[in-house]
């Protein structure tokens, strides 16, 4: 189940909200929330839900050991054991196939490549539990004495399956002492509706254009269709390939940030405050800045739990670069078990190192608009590596972007697709900028001084979430399948 399933929206969510509205005491509400969360997870993974529970149980025990033996060797052993178990399970489920495939390609063994289905959200909840164990070890957070509280943290349906990667220390206090009031709940509703509309109205429509031009993932993944797919992709004229990739660039941001919006909104409805996961990354003026604004919970995770423990930038220039390399290889590999993601990580590593060294002065002297253009171009080409897991497709699309497939510049299809989606494209471009956000702040400010504006605010604030939800429901009916892109990681 994902947040954009009608079943979630019209069955799970009302049941959960109504139940929690009637349960006043926090511990009881937690129990209800835990039941709903486990149900939510089991709905997608009826068997693997036990991995989630088992992992949380192991980390709960190890957390107790760490707290009991603080400063002693046993604490360190317990922490290492937890890391080994968590990353070991993640590796088995996520990377076995990849390593087997590459070993087979080089050495001819193993004969059979195992196909292990990936438990939903394992990449996210593994990292969440890691933050818990490591933070307990570091003494930055208290260990959880009650298992069900830790399990609630790990399985909370708001963020369990697609992030943001919420740290235990961020919500530890709120698990037992959160306040629910009209303001946070209203804000939560507002945020959730915005996220829903971003997903159902904008991201899904972008996805339809992308799939039409660059073929859907299911078609690309079919090895029997490889030749046909390459031929179709090669037949697209330059303008069409650029259009397709532009819509993908919009789609991935809108889709993923929509999920985070919805998670944050759901959290607020229950009195949890999760940190922001995006900060308008497509307005960034350097790659460094882009990564400060994109999937913030993941980059800060790697910063705090990999980069800094490795020594960060405190051990000289060479070690800094090696540390960055490790972080970006891992970031790439975390996104998926295939070479394109590793290359995608390396690609950003190169630009980040360049920006720290050769490009630093140059960038400072460059006008803002050019810096922004440079950043967007780098990100744009990065998404080519990201979308296609087969390198043959990456190759043919890159060639297509530069006209090396000799399929012409524009053509009727390209101009028609652009015209058909022109107003939508403008709306989607506005949605990736802070324009609407600033408009909201402006209206809020005006409403402090004028009664009329206060009334305008009232109407907009009340009507907008409802209108957005209604429009989203309309677009989700009859649309049987609309997974989130980040759902697969």
């Amino acid at each position: 189940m994902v947040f954009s399933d009608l079943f979630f929206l019209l069955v799970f969510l009302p049941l959960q909200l109504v139940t929690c509205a009637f349960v006043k005491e926090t511990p009881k509400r937690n129990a209800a929330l835990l039941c709903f969360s486990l149900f939510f997870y089991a709905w997608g993974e009826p068997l693997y839900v036990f991995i989630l529970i088992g992992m949380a149980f192991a980390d709960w025990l190890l957390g107790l050991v760490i707290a009991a033996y603080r400063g002693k060797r046993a604490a360190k052993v317990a922490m290492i054991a937890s890391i080994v178990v968590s990353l070991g399970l993640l590796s088995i489920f996520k990377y076995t196939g990849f390593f087997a495939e590459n070993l087979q390609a080089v050495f001819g063994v193993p004969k059979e490549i195992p196909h292990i289905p990936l438990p939903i959200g394992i990449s996210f909840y593994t990292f969440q539990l890691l933050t818990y164990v490591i933070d307990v070890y570091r003494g930055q957070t208290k260990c959880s004495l009650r298992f069900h509280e830790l399990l609630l943290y790990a399985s909370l349906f708001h963020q369990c399956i697609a992030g943001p990667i919420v740290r235990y220390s961020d919500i530890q206090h709120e698990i037992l002492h959160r306040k629910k009031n009209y303001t946070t709940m209203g804000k939560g509703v507002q945020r959730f509706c915005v996220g829903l509309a971003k997903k159902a109205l904008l991201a899904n429509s972008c996805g339809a254009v992308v799939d039409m031009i660059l073929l859907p993932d299911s078609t690309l993944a079919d090895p029997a269709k490889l030749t046909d797919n390459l031929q179709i992709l090669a037949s697209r004229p330059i303008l069409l390939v650029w259009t397709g990739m532009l819509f993908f660039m919009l789609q991935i941001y809108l889709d993923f940030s929509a999920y985070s919006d919805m998670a944050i909104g759901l959290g607020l409805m229950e009195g949890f405050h999760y940190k922001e996961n995006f900060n308008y990354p497509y307005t960034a003026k350097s790659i460094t800045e882009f990564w400060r604004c994109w999937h913030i919970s993941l980059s800060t995770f790697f910063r705090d739990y990999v980069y800094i423990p490795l020594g960060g930038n405190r051990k000289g220039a060479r070690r800094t670069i090696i540390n960055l390399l490790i972080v970006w290889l891992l970031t790439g590999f975390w996104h998926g078990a295939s070479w394109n993601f590793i290359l995608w990580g390396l690609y950003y590593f190169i630009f980040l190192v360049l920006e720290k060294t050769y490009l630093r002065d140059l960038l400072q002297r460059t006008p803002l608009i050019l810096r922004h253009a440079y950043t967007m171009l780098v990100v744009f080409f990065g998404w080519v590596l990201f979308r296609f897991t087969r390198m043959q497709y990456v190759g043919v699309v890159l060639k297509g972007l530069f006209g090396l497939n000799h399929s012409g510049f524009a053509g009727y299809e390209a101009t028609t697709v652009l015209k058909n989606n022109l107003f939508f494209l403008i709306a989607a471009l506005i949605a990736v900028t802070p324009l609407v956000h600033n408009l909201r702040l402006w209206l809020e400010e005006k409403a402090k001084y004028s009664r009329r504006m206060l009334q305008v605010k009232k109407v907009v604030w009340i009507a907008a979430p409802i209108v957005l939800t209604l429009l989203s429901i309309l677009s989700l009916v009859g649309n049987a399948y609309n997974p989130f892109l980040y759902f697969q990681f």
Partner: protein
Amino acid sequence: MKKKKKKIPKPLRKRTNRAIRRAQIRSFMLLLVIGFVISWLIPLRPVRSESEKRDLTPFPTLTWKALYSGSFFDGINMWFSDTFPFREAMVTVNGKIKSLYGYGNRLYGLTDQKADEIPQEEHTPVMEPITNLEEIDETLGEAINADNAVVQDLGTLIVVDDAAYEVYNFSQKVADTYAGIINQAASSLDGVAQVYDLIVPTSIDITMPDNERVKCNSSSQAEAIRYIFSRMTPQVHSVNVYNILRNHRTEYIYFRTDHHWTARGAFYAYAQFCRSMQVQPKALSTFKEHVFEGFKGSFVAESHKNANLVNHPDTVYAYEPNAETTLVYTEKNGNTVNWSVIGDVTDWYASSKYSAFIGGDHPYTIIKNPDAPQDKKCILVKESFGNALAPFIAAEFGEVHVIDYRYWHGSIVAFSKEHGVDTVLFVNNISATRNSSLMKSLYAVTQ
């Protein structure tokens, strides 16, 4: 110095803001609860979409395997959104919203591969015999599923104003296979029946405005038809209807919301067929006319209910011979049904009105006309384009055996001998001649 503006008193602002938040929560909850209630009004859930011509996702069956693999729950999600109460109305409204996304002609489904060049030089007939089905599989790739063959793959669609057009991409391999199959049928029927072949062009090359047509990447159907006929042996009488349809292009000869031709378009093809049989065609006015309004054809669903198409439905004008004709069709399950050449579809679904012609697509249909020469018997081998043509053919033959090769099992050669058929007419729309799975079905009935 700028005068500092006076703020609204804090208590009022606070009160209003609280009221806003309360209203937000209440209206959101109300919406969810209403949605919850509606979604469980099970009798309101549709099981079939007539406009999309498909059964909607059924509620999944509960098995142990489905339960622990999670596919049971996925199935519930699918069922839940696919069969939502009032789905058709909601999908229609959503189509209207989508029409605001941009402007100009609309394009749907950019799935086609590059078309083959149509060879210009003179050609010799395809003589290589197609020996068995496996060979077709090999030459054409692609596994064939009997159900898939039924649904016409519409490929890329272009909507200009209130009319949609299907892009056609020539495929030399499939076109050659088609010619080969017809050649082989003609050779097997030598001395039994005369074989005619009629390729129906689609609207994009006939009625699409020229200024739009020049912009599209769609193979020339005039050239494709000329090429395919050049690959046929002299035993096959080719009936080229391209020019006559072009001459009447300003008339209502193709539907705007559906991929078929209208009966009027089929009438001109009938006239051309008569000429190649050296028979005088009857005038359209000698046929009995029926009118059915409000036809929303296949392009409506294919374009996800494009608002221009939805708002401007077609009208079906149907014609039948002025005679005491009888029609019996055999369904896929073997049942026979007495029907009429033109059925009354006034109360049928808007998407099903093309079924006015000979009761729609059935494996086998026989039409008898007591007023036509009783010794003249014809087999009409067709996919759905043939339906609109069949009533006119019935004016010329005492018996017309309509065979839909996609569903019928048997041998046309044996059937012709058994029933004393003297004329075999293949009517295939041009899109069928690029569809390898249809070729397999056609091959099967010509053995």
